[in-house]
């Protein structure tokens, strides 16, 4: 380093700061107000820029990149429409606590407030859907702001941070002095360890419990606490229920792992929660999709809630012991004095419910079980496709889903074995998330086999990103579960809206031809016996994207299901042969359908 002061432009300072944060890839889309930064980017070959086809795609890619590794994902866009196109992606990252830094160009400082061309108040718009945001007023602030933004995005409860940089700030020059000292903010102190009295109170409840269940959420993954969780569960002999985003924090073939809880969770899991005398909520937030009706939720249970975000404690569910801290640290505080007499009869009871649920809900060809209707072996069933994908990849692939029925089937039939191998939009439920997030995940973890499992509806929301995957030669495997319907909405229409399938049938393009137009190798699967070969064919392609369309039955329904607003154990189960007979005769007699639960 020379002692000469380095006079750089704001755009160059931005690039320098990204390098200091170990950023290697940025996802973005150029435009007028961000052009000075793009002009600087071309002199920084270590910052690989991925040109997306839409700014929403850029934010989802940054999000997928972040979730696959825990590193901060970076998205760049221009002012106005470029920035507003990022909003869905930022809200997605916010609800799922994903560390993303979004950089937007802004019109020049002198033009702010004049309704200038492509001006929009993006810090105002993004305020409720970012962890924090900045409008940079002067080039001298820029380096500090970038460092602060990354710090805030990745620490505490992670989340998206937006930096809005006016064009003149990108152009202005100043001496570049990187702020080497660690960030200190007067109002931002992510908690770490918990006070001893709370640890003592938790240990006391754990020791006294006979029917405990751990509720493991995404916090386990973000805290990197899967080893501690495993040790805790094994030593205290406590079964583990997973949230959707908590999936993959424990190997799902582990004997203590029950599976997913909630609206489409296992009936046995929900039953265990309702029967438990102690819930240990680790890094989860009692979302309405996992609690069902709140005043009937786990009424027999004492509750211990560990979360890094104090505002989650007592937000939806009142708890007996609320512990604010880093989950790994708190578990390490609990472990040395963890004591509990195992209650094998509790585990046995859950196992009985589980066996029943498996027999009842698991998709199987007709004839295998005399009580269950089964499906026509000629037809493809989505659950079977996912089950085969899991078997084919040994549960080792990174799967990235879109939102809808296929997402729930993924959660039910794909049993993950390693942390951070399921990437899905849980909180916001963003259709269109799957493909771009998978591209981001593959770029972050190039050695992983990455599968985008998407529905025909969500895929069409962001399928322009196929071009990005081709241009970047991203080896992402795309499995479209095509039922020609917005399947989850159709399911609600079937249950709760008298089977009026309005605005849910889709006339789709030929997805294989679309892929071919991009030069993407593609196959269509319509029969069960073609699944295995096709998966093997797709896995063997080791450069660029590959697309497989699975044409599945449109009538299929995600069972079991807790209707919105119903109690967690009031699940709609897959109908048996007898149920179907009864329904048929009721229909013939013109008996009214039972009224659905009120929808929340």
């Amino acid at each position, binding site marked *: 380093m020379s002692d000469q002061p380095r006079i750089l432009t704001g755009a160059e300072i931005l690039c320098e700061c990204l390098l200091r944060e170990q950023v290697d890839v940025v996802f973005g889309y150029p435009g007028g107000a961000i052009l000075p930064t793009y002009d600087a980017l071309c002199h920084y070959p270590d910052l690989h820029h991925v040109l997306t086809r839409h700014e929403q795609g850029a934010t989802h890619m940054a999000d997928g990149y972040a979730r696959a590794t825990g590193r901060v994902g970076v998205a760049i866009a221009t002012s106005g429409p470029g920035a507003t196109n990022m909003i869905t992606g930022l809200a997605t990252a916010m609800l799922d606590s994903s560390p993303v830094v979004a950089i937007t160009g802004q019109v020049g400082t002198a033009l702010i407030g004049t309704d200038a061309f492509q001006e929009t108040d993006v810090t105002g718009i993004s305020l409720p859907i970012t962890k924090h945001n900045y409008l940079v007023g002067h080039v*001298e602030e820029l380096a500090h702001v970038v460092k602060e933004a990354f710090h805030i995005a990745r620490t505490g409860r992670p989340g998206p941070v937006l930096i809005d940089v006016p064009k003149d700030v990108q152009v202005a020059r100043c001496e570049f002095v990187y702020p080497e000292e660690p960030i200190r903010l007067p109002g931002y102190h992510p908690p770490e360890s918990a006070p001893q009295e709370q640890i003592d109170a938790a240990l006391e409840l754990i020791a006294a419990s006979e029917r405990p269940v751990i509720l493991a959420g995404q916090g386990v993954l973000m805290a990197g606490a899967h080893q501690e969780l495993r040790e805790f569960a094994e030593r205290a002999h406590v079964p583990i229920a997973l949230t959707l985003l908590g999936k993959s924090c424990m190997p799902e073939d582990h004997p203590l792992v029950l599976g997913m809880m909630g609206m489409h969770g296992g009936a046995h899991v929900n039953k265990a929660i309702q029967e438990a005398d102690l819930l240990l909520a680790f890094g989860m937030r009692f979302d309405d999709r996992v609690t069902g009706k709140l005043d009937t939720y786990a009424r027999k249970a004492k509750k211990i809630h560990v979360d890094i975000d*104090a505002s989650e404690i*007592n937000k939806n569910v009142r708890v007996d012991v609320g512990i604010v801290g880093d989950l790994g640290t708190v578990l390490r505080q609990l472990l040395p004095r963890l004591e509990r007499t195992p209650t094998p009869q509790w585990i046995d009871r859950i196992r009985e419910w589980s066996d029943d649920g498996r027999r009842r809900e698991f998709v199987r060809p007709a004839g295998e079980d005399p009580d269950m209707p089964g499906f026509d072996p000629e037809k493809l069933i989505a659950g079977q496709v996912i089950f085969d994908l899991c078997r084919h990849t040994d549960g080792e692939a990174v799967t990235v889903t879109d939102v809808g029925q296929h997402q729930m089937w993924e959660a039910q039939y794909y049993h993950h074995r390693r942390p951070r191998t399921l990437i899905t939009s849980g909180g916001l439920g963003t259709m269109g998330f799957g493909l771009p997030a998978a591209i981001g995940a593959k770029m972050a973890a190039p050695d992983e086999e990455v599968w985008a499992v998407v529905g025909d509806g969500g895929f069409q929301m962001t399928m322009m990103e196929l071009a990005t995957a081709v241009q970047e030669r991203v080896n992402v495997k795309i499995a479209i579960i095509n039922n020609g319907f917005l399947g989850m909405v159709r399911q609600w229409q079937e249950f709760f809206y008298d089977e009026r399938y309005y605005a849910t049938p889709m006339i789709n393009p030929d997805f294989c031809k679309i892929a071919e137009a991009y030069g993407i190798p593609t196959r269509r699967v319509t029969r069960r016996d073609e699944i295995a070969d096709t998966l093997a064919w797709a896995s063997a392609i080791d450069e660029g994207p590959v697309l497989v369309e699975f044409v599945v039955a449109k009538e299929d329904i995600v069972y079991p299901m807790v209707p919105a607003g119903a109690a967690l154990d009031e699940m709609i189960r897959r109908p048996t042969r007898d149920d179907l007979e009864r329904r048929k005769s009721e229909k013939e007699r013109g008996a009214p359908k039972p009224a659905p639960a009120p929808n929340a």
Partner: protein
Amino acid sequence: MAKHTLCALVENRPGVLMRVVNLFRRRNFNIDSLTVGRTHRDDYSRITMVMEGSREQAELVEKNLYKLVNVIEVEYMSGLPTVERDLALIKVQVDAAARRDITQLCDIFRARIVDVSADSMIVETTGEEAKIESFCELLRPFGIVEMVRTGIVAMGRGDHNLRDHGYQPQVALAGARKSVL
């Protein structure tokens, strides 16, 4: 619905007030009044909020305020020994007789007459909310033309202080120091 008073010490930067106000909308809380102003330090501002709701909701507001990066300290004032003050300017319609009556009322309430014209006068009163309310009730028959109130400001008595962490800003933000949030 009970009323709850919260105080927050915040960084004096552009946009901070918007973040605080947005929180109330975003989390569906009701603001009864919100007052913001400078403190003895240039880089801090202080906000006093009064909200309606349950104690649990007030607790959630408190925790969500803490989540804002620019919020340094939050205190739940209800239940603490505090001094709370509200200031009102009230313009009343008057004739000669009413002017005399109002002047007497002002004496009783230790209100000040700050403007007099031929057919109206402005009185200023400071105090706790209840006192201002009852003063208003007494003035109402004369005909209140307009009224403005600052909303409540609150401070803990004795050693109940909103702590400050001895924070020094790391970077001088040009122009930001004279910000009114």
